[in-house]
């Protein structure tokens, strides 16, 4: 099977950039994203949600703007009737229950970490990222530099899902914004 070529391939190199001292922002690119969308109908949402939760060994579906995860994968509730499934293939969904769609190549995922990750994102996203408003395992879709993106607060850091076509353009903005905090790219 041919290798997947990421949208950012050739457009960045690992290293330490910008302000000296401890790097405030760490960026890394998640390779070979495995992402499926599963959508339900209004009446079938509870059942489909439960099915997805079960598929990763969790008890209940994620509520609006929330994520659940385990070692098997993660389920993100990104729209009222739509879920994203990460790192595993979706269970079979009958048309009466809903539908699934492979979106693994449609997004580039950048992981953002570091002591100033939240402050950094505050330069880019009109989102309330304060702890009470956006705790761990919250998901939000918003506009970053005019591009619709999805942000997942995961384990102290953030996963930023960018439409693949805009990945380089957004990466350039991330890079330029991160320099003032001290940037480390791994």
């Amino acid at each position, binding site marked *: 099977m041919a290798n997947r070529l990421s949208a950012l391939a050739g457009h960045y190199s690992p290293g330490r950039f910008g302000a000296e001292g401890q790097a405030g922002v760490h960026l890394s690119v998640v390779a070979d994203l495995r992402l499926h969308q599963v959508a339900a109908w*209004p*009446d079938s*949402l509870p059942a489909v949600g439960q099915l997805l939760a079960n598929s990763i060994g969790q008890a209940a579906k994620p509520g609006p703007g929330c994520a659940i995860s385990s070692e098997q994968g993660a389920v993100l509730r990104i*729209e*009222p009737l739509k879920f994203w499934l990460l790192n595993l293939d979706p269970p079979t969904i009958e048309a009466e229950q809903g539908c699934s769609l492979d979106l693994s190549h449609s997004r580039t995922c950048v992981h953002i970490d570091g002591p100033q990750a939240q402050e950094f994102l505050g330069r880019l996203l*009109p989102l309330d990222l304060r702890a009470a408003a956006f705790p761990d395992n919250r998901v939000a*879709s*918003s*506009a970053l530099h005019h591009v*619709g993106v999805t942000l997942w607060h995961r384990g102290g850091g953030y996963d930023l899902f960018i439409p693949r076509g805009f990945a380089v353009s957004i990466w350039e903005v991330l890079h330029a914004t991160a320099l003032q905090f001290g940037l480390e790219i791994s």
Partner: protein
Amino acid sequence: MIRIDCPFCGLRDHSEFSYGGDASINYPPLDAPAEQWHDAVFLRENIRGRQLETWQHTSGCRMWLNVERDTVSHEIFAVWPAHRGYGRVLHAEKENTE
């Protein structure tokens, strides 16, 4: 800047949304007479004060919303999903968490 309380995403800037149109319009069946289609498509009130509008949360959850807004003060009085099925789903979930 107007901020709209999306029933799924919460309070967000208007720049995440696209304005739709007049939410008070009931579009007739596709084969309805021309006069009904003419009225639905071309006739609009120009309201100074509260009006019903549709907005879509294009950079967020893509949900279409009905919004009651004052065209003079921009005060927003109500926001709810345009699709009643979405409304039922979100309402049920809200009840479960409360």
